[in-house]
Structures are given as structure tokens and as C-alpha cells.
């Protein structure tokens, strides 16, 4: 099962490597990992997308909680939540493809944020599936490069991760 874990951790040098090191040394999966400071500069918030049986996820949560730099861990995917990922796709935009790319970008509510006479950079946010289906919908030969931020997750409504 796929899970989205949200962590608050001390904004200390090396905190990220403690978390990523834990995953590699114990053989846990990481599908994506994103991290950035929060409004409280002493803390970072991390979102990890991982997968495993219930027992494995329980161990992952416990092991993360055990790290001294980790302040709090929640499995946001346990209850209603929102996931978003940002993707930048650079595509070839020549001839007929130029119009087609623009049209596809509009359908997926993307934005073209860079234009040259032969290429576009399209910015797209949404769930992982939405980004995947965009990539599936355009001609793969036209994709020059893609960059994805990894998933950010947040619980809906009253579910707040804060100390």
C-alpha cells in the first residue's frame, strides 16, 4: 500500500541524511521525498511517499519517531487529505505540435511559462496521476525533459500537523 507521511523535523544540518539513511539502511521504499523550511525557520516539513505492508509502515513511523531530529510524524494518507505535485515539462514545439501542446496544456490547466521558437516549458500541478496522464497524453518524442517536485501532502479540514 502507498502511504504519504508528513514529518516535522529540526532544521539541523544532517537531519535529511538521517531520514534518508534510515530508509536505505532498513530497506524501506522511498517513492518521493520533498523537504523545505516552514514558517517557523527552526523546522522543516518533509513529505515522504512510501509503500509497504501495514507492519512495515508501522515500523517506518516508529523508526522515524525515534530519530532525535524528528519532531512529529503523521501518515496523512490515513484520512482525507490533499496531495499536490509540481511538474515542469520542456517540450518540442514546432509546426503543428506548437498548437497541439498549447491545447493540451490548457486541457490539463497547465501554464506555458517559457517560450522559444522551438520549445515550451509547461508548468503543471496536481496529483501524481494527473501529471502521469499528462505525460501519457502528449507525444513522448516531443518531451525534452521533465522535472517533478515530488508529492506534498496535507490533511483536510481540522487535521493539522503542528507542534
Amino acid at each position, binding site marked *: 500500500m502507498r502511504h504519504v507521511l508528513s514529518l516535522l*523535523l*529540526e532544521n539541523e*544540518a*544532517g537531519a535529511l*541524511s*538521517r531520514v534518508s*539513511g534510515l530508509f536505505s*539502511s532498513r530497506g524501506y521504499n522511498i517513492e518521493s521525498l520533498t523537504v523545505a523550511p516552514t514558517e517557523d525557520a527552526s523546522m522543516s516539513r518533509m513529505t515522504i511517499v512510501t509503500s509497504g505492508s501495514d*507492519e512495515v509502515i*508501522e*515500523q517506518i513511523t*516508529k*523508526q522515524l*519517531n*525515534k530519530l*532525535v*531530529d*524528528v*519532531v512529529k510524524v503523521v501518515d496523512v494518507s490515513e484520512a482525507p487529505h490533499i496531495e499536490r505535485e509540481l511538474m515542469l515539462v520542456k517540450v518540442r514545439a514546432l509546426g503543428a505540435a506548437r498548437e497541439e501542446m498549447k491545447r493540451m496544456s490548457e486541457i490539463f490547466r497547465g501554464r506555458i511559462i517559457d517560450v522559444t521558437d522551438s520549445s515550451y516549458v509547461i508548468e503543471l500541478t496536481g496529483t501524481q496521476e494527473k501529471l502521469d496522464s499528462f505525460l501519457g497524453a502528449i507525444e513522448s518524442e516531443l518531451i525534452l525533459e521533465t522535472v517533478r517536485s515530488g508529492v506534498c501532502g496535507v490533511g483536510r479540514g481540522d487535521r493539522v500537523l503542528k*507542534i
Partner: protein
Amino acid sequence: MVLTGAEIVVRCLQEEKVEYLFGYPGGSVLFLYDELFKQDKVRHVLVRHEQAAVHAADGYARSTEKVGVALVTSGPGATNAVTGIATAYMDSIPIVIISGQVPTAAIGLDAFQEVDTVGITRPCVKHNFLVKDVRELAATLKKAFHIARTGRPGPVLVDIPKDVTAQRCEYEYPEKVSLRSYNPVVKGHSGQIRKAVQLLLEARRPMIYTGGGVVLSNAAEKLAKLGRLLGFPVTNTLMGLGGYPASDKQFVGMPGMHGTYEANMAMHYCDVLLAVGARFDDRVVGNAEHFMQEPRKIIHVDIDPSSISKRVKVDVPVVGDVGDVLDEMIACLEATRERPDAEHLALWWRQIEEWRRRDSLGYKNSDEIIKPQFVVQKLWEVTGGDAFVATDVGQHQMWSAQYYKFNKPRRWVTSGGLGTMGFGLPAAMGIQLAHPGSPVACITGEGSIQMCIQELSTCKQYRLPIKVLSLNNRYLGMVRQWQEIFHGNRYSESYMDSLPDFAKLAEAYGHVGLQVTKPGDVEGAIREAFKRKDDLVFLDFQIDPTENVYPMIQGGKGLNEMILSTEDL
């Protein structure tokens, strides 16, 4: 008061009441050594290898209730310490390691004797720090001691660049630490505890299984009290030996790969298992799948939530300090008149006695050749069961665990989790320094002792009258045993040629050395050794090279599938 970083470190150690600092100097720690030179409260012990510094701090910590401390230089000093750190980590031993680092401006430039110590040790410490600002030094050291000794204890490393030890700042030792991200649970959940007690009262075939957690939380007396109240059988893991008195009739010996038949059968067939400060290690329950096939309810008390339901699914988890939880269990029991059903308990004991009669630790002694079991039994007799015993790793370690009966905690010091050969002698140094005048034995093998034999020199310098009992079988015995059983007697590289004359070697270091070849001389030699209160005596017992450790559970097998002797193979 304005002090240099080096002065601050020494002050902090004094504040923490550190008696001994085990260490080895080098370029990055010269300012620290200079400050140590100027004071006499913290006594420095100069080892011969940094691995030994950490093992000695570890042995000191295990045999006391204190935090052990080691000091090493950057680069090779730190890498040499890693085995010691990992050893302490696997057994949850509270130690603080201070390592020197190249100056902050040189970090990352492949400077002379630079390694990423924090990176290398990260997976084998409870926590570590790199102190880049002298103003954070005192608070960091305070945190290091706090983290090492609280919760599930463990090693904490503090890496200090050389320039930080020279910089000055205002010094004040913080009185308290508060870490928003680190607050180990101490008190167990009382609802869970009541549930656990109810299960225990309803048990028909109960079993108490305890590990190193009982020793680490100083809860042996509480365990004894709970044991008496309930009248249940008790087993202690390798790490937990001494947690319950071995001479008590409710004690059924050690469980696991080389545990007793009765302990393993009772673990397997009990209907309620109370696990306390133990972690269902693979060397204890063997094949976890097989173990879980037998229906039983499991109560697991541990301070580390991640130890619960890691290998074996648990029915009643209780997170908390073992001592606190045992206290509360006792209080619950004392508050009720209910007691476990006496009839069923008697039947269960009858079954256990039947298993016990198999005498799984019985062995054939000999008049011709020294049997290792006999040596350990004699050591136990001669020392009245009251010595501190440190061991190395291998067959001799298992025989020590099987035949030396520990009645008190913190007397038994062994590398259980990592299984580090070379641990015994340096650990014994830490123990002897912590307990001057007490008998300290190091039971070792001719393979293991050579991994830290240089420490005989440290023992001479600090006059540590350790008794080294080497069970010399000329083989890396435990390896040979596995090769005999699982690899068709092909003794690939497990025979050691060209062994030194250990008695002479000990003498060369300035100690007393004695080779013992006849069974009839064993007891006399041990008595003589312990009579020499001021000398380190090295007893080189030439033992039967073919002796194997039994009973045994083969890898992948279940607890009820023990081999009692060669005939069962």
C-alpha cells in the same frame, strides 16, 4: 566566565562527574589533551587502540549505572572507534564519544586526517553532533549525556573541529535540557498495564522472558518481586543474564540458539508470554514464522516502541520504562486477591520439570583433556558466582553464558547484538577501573583475544589485575562448529597456525602467564590466579578442540526443534 572550547569540554566532563576518560591523542584533539593535563578530576586512560577506548567505556557503563566516555582524534582515530560504537549501539549502552575533527575551514577539503565522522557513525549511534560554534559546545555536551542515558540508552558522538576547541566564549553549563523532538515515554499506559495483568492472571502456561532492558533500567529487584508474586517460570536472554537470579528455582536458563531445552520449550508452548525489555531477536526466537504458528498471547514491555511488533506480533504492547511498568504491575497484583490458577500452574511446572530433566547442559567431562564447560564451572565455583565476567565472541562466550550462573545484574558483560571479537579484554578494563578490588574475569578464545591483545599493555600501565581465561582450542571454534555441522567438516580457514605462547606473551607485557593442559590443574590455576590480587594473570587453557556448544537450534528452525548433542544431528 570566558573559556576556550577545550576548557569547556573538560568542565562539562567534570560537571557530568566523569571519572574516567578512555582515549588516544592526535592532532585534532591536542587542545583537549592540553586541558586534561592541567587537571586531575577526570582521569584519562591511555589505551593502545581506539576500538579499545570505546569498548572500555562500554564495559565501564555496563558494569555501573553511569555513562562511559571515550575521546579519539579525527580520521583514523574516529574510524578505529566505529566498531566500538556499533557494539554499544546494538546493545543499547550509554556512552559518549568525543571525536576531534579538522578545523571548520578545512572540512570538505580532504584535509589531512579528515573523515566525515558524523556521516560514518550515523547509522550506529543513537544520535550525533558536529559542533561548529563554540557557543553551542556546552549545551551540545549536555544534550549528548542526556540522550545517551535516557530512553533506550545508546552511544552519542560529539564531533568537535580543532578550531572550536581553541575559540573562546562565555561558559555556563546548562542545568536542564529540553528537546522538543526527544521525549521518551517513561510511564506505561495504565489501561494497557491492567490488561496485561489480567492476561497474566488468566494464564495457564505462563512464561516471563526478559532481556537487557531489565538490566539497563536497574529493574532486577522489581522483576524478582513480580516473579515471586506470580510463581511463573523466568528466562533471561544473553543480554539479560543476571536480571533474574540464576540460582532461583523459577529460573529456567537462557533461551535461544544455545539456550536450555526447558527455556525454549516453555517459550514455545506457553499460552501467555510476558516479554520485558527484550526484542525477540533472531538468536532468541529462531524462525519468527514458526514461533508465531503456536497460539499464545504476548505482552511486550519496552521503552522503545519500534522494538514492539518488529519481528513478532504482540497482543498487549506497553511502552515505558521497564522499572516503572514492573512497579505498576506489582501494584496491580497487590491490589487484587486474584491469583493465577494454582492447579494449571502446577501442571505447567510439572511439564517444565520434565523438560528440565533432559539436562540439556549436561556434558561428558574428561580426565585427559580439559573441557571448556568445566573451566567455566570451576571459575563460577572459585569466585562464588560473584565475579564480573566479560567475554569475547564465539563458543567460549556461549559456554560462559551457560555455565556461569549470575545472580546479580551488571556482572555479565558481553557483546550480544554485534558479536564483536576483541570486546572482552578492553571491556574488562573498564569494569576493573569502575570496581577496583572486585574480581574481574575475561573469558576469551585464542582468536578473539588477538583482536585487542595490545591492551595487555594498558592493563600493565594502570595495574588492572584482570584474570584472563583463554579457552584455547586452536580453532576459531564457533566457525569450526558451523563448518562441522553445515559445511561437511570442511574447516576452511578456521584453524589458526603459529599461535604465540600466550603465557610467555603475557609475561612479555609484564604480567603473569600460565599454560594449563590437565583437567586436574584447572581449579588450582584459577584459585592461584585470583589469589594474586594485584596481578593480571593470563590462563591459557589448552582445551578439547573438538568440543561443540550444545544444545543448539539450527538457523531457520523453531524453538521446539533443538539439537541436544552430536547424536541428534
